[in-house]
């Protein structure tokens, strides 16, 4: 009960605080530069220059506190030893280069990077095109989109059941092993199959992200002027040629945005691996490796931070390109 009160009052204070800030600061600004009197014009101009900062101020402050400061703090911490008591320079990075698990993570991340965005975008594009002209297309779209509403942890749990293993002879409760045994195969411990298990994890993310790709690409496909398609039909193009030579090139910008957005999600992938294999059996990825060093057993803040920095450096250029493309699309 006490907790509930705490929560409610926190919300109330938060909302009231926001209103008070925006109303109060604007009121004060109008007091300092009133829009009347001799200097009305000057005052309006000056107030106009300051006002955006009143609105942006809180956001900038909190973003700085929770995003920018941690970046620099991580960078700083990555130069210290495990408990932060001793400056070690780039030792943590040198250690990373020689660490087998780190190399495995980098390699796996690269694999995720290649497979997941490609498959999710491809399936999304196909789903968008194929559901567009069907009567029950919207139902299909809803079904494909639904996994987007499931958290990564939830999705991981669901798929862990699909890959679940029971010894041969016992009743298989995992969907995949049930199918395999139905067709006379031997049940497999899917998540420990070296090499393959990475792909079994990736399927989960593809399953989630296809809906996202489909929704965005479907909107883009609908934005293509109908006349260009009719002109292509008159020019003798087959439906496949219309799709690949007329439609896809026209939505290339959107495809790039979808691709890079999924790429960023993939680089940060953590929950699915954490829930399903915890990085064992050759499925380690950077985010999970960072978590391992940062919070498991005896924490090593230095090495954990170093991995975090590497991860950030990998994401940043893709992020920049993504934002650039997205802005180009808007224009």
């Amino acid at each position, binding site marked *: 009960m006490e907790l509930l009160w705490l929560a409610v009052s926190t919300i109330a204070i938060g909302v009231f605080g926001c209103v008070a800030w925006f109303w109060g600061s604007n009121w004060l600004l109008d007091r300092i530069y009133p829009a009347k009197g001799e200097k009305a014009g000057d005052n309006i101009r000056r107030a106009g220059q300051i006002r955006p900062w009143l609105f942006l101020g809180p956001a900038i402050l909190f973003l700085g506190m929770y995003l920018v400061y941690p970046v620099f703090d991580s960078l700083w911490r990555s130069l210290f030893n495990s408990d932060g008591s001793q400056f070690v320079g780039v030792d943590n990075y040198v250690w990373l280069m020689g660490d087998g698990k780190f190399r495995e993570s980098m390699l796996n991340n690269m694999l995720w990077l290649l497979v997941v965005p490609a498959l999710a975008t491809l399936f999304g594009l196909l789903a968008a095109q194929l559901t567009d002209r069907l009567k029950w297309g919207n139902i299909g779209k809803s079904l494909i989109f639904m996994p987007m509403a499931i958290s990564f942890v939830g999705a991981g749990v669901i798929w862990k059941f699909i890959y679940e293993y029971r010894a041969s002879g016992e009743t298989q409760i995992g969907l995949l092993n049930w199918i395999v045994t139905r067709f006379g195969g031997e049940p497999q411990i899917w998540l420990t199959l070296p090499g393959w298990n990475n792909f079994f994890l990736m399927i989960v993310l593809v399953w989630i992200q296809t809906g996202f790709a489909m929704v965005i690409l479907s909107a883009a496909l609908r934005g293509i002027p109908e*006349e260009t398609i*009719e002109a292509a*039909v*008159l*020019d*003798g*193009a087959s439906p496949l040629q219309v799709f690949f030579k*007329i439609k896809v090139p*026209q939505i*290339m910008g959107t495809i790039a945005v979808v691709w890079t957005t999924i790429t960023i999600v993939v680089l940060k992938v953590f929950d699915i691996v954490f829930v399903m294999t915890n990085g064992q059996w050759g499925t380690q990825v950077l985010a999970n490796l960072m978590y391992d060093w940062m919070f498991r057993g005896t924490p090593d803040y230095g090495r954990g931070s170093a991995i975090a920095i590497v991860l950030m450096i990998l994401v940043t250029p893709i992020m920049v390109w993504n934002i650039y493309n997205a802005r180009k699309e808007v224009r």
Partner: protein
Amino acid sequence: MADLKLTSLAKSYGDVSVLKDIDLDIKSGEFIVFVGPSGCGKSTLLRMIAGLEQITAGELQIARRVVNDIPPSQRGIAMVFQSYALYPHMTVRDNMAFALKIAGQSKDQIKAATDSAGKMLQLTPYLDRLPKALSGGQRQRVAIGRAIVRDPQVYLFDEPLSNLDAALRVATRIEIAQLKASMPDRTMIYVTHDQTEAMTLADRIVVLAGGGIAQVGAPLELYERPVNEFVAQFIGSPAMNLLPGRVKTVGSVTTVALEGGLEARVAIPTREGDQGMQVNLGVRPEDMREADGDALFEGTVDLTEALGEVTLLYFGTNAETVPIIAKLPGIHPGLNGRKVRLTADPDALHLFHNGQSLLYRDGDLPPYQPRTTPSGSMGSTPAGDDRQAPTDGIIKPEGPVR
């Protein structure tokens, strides 16, 4: 080579009938223009010919081949769209080459075709540009070029000039006329709502209204011998004035007693027994002039529009009826608020009964000869005619059509 034959063509969307009973013969090498008010189905008819719309009923022949179920690309047609419909991701050259590439032509053939089309349309400097780097007029020329490289038997134009500004529209219109002149054996079908384009480009105009063909004829024929009030008011700007009255005396020249007490002599024959028949006297604004003696219209000028070469006089703008408009050549200052008496030549007048022209009462007219002098007579040419019969049913515009 490629004449078109439309037989009882019809289009409906579910229960909604858009076009019905379209019968039309288009001869090879003709320039045909479809005109009509918005929603009359002119674009739909063109898209049916192109194969972009299914034909609900009837038969469409191109070059003596029934093409109802033949895909658009195999009908021997090319189409130019109002919005240009250029492929935005391809250069001008690739836009023009697309159809040829699909058809599997060799690189040399494609280059030769695009080069010559580019030269013909003065697009050579722009061949490697993307459409977005071109002006509206250039884009439309690329769209035309895309049609030319395919060398179709029939060109279809769907309001190709509507997205251009006024000056460019005139220039491109002339280019299209020259294009047609350079390939006399190619058939062109052109859809527009702009009657200037229709009058200047067409060999024959097809006026569409109310889901059917109102009249087919040479531009000046539609202007001088409209088959009904709709065509009379649709062709010509400002629209023809209609003055209600009754037939007073019959004969080769008819006298009409107009509402308001005035009389008009009309060079259209009427028969015994027509006396007292309710008619609408049609008089074009540009045929009206100030009367020395008898007038067929008198009224107080409510508004003048001085355009320099002509002056437009409006009568009855404040009333709820359609205003009467007169177009006098030259400059006439100080007419506002004055009472004016106007008349017109008996040859220039039209008579309509129940919306249909009395000229066509006895069936088809002899072939049309333009009226060259104000006193030139109509219908004095030899008989023998292949004109379309006027459609039955009365098509009456609701208020001013334009």
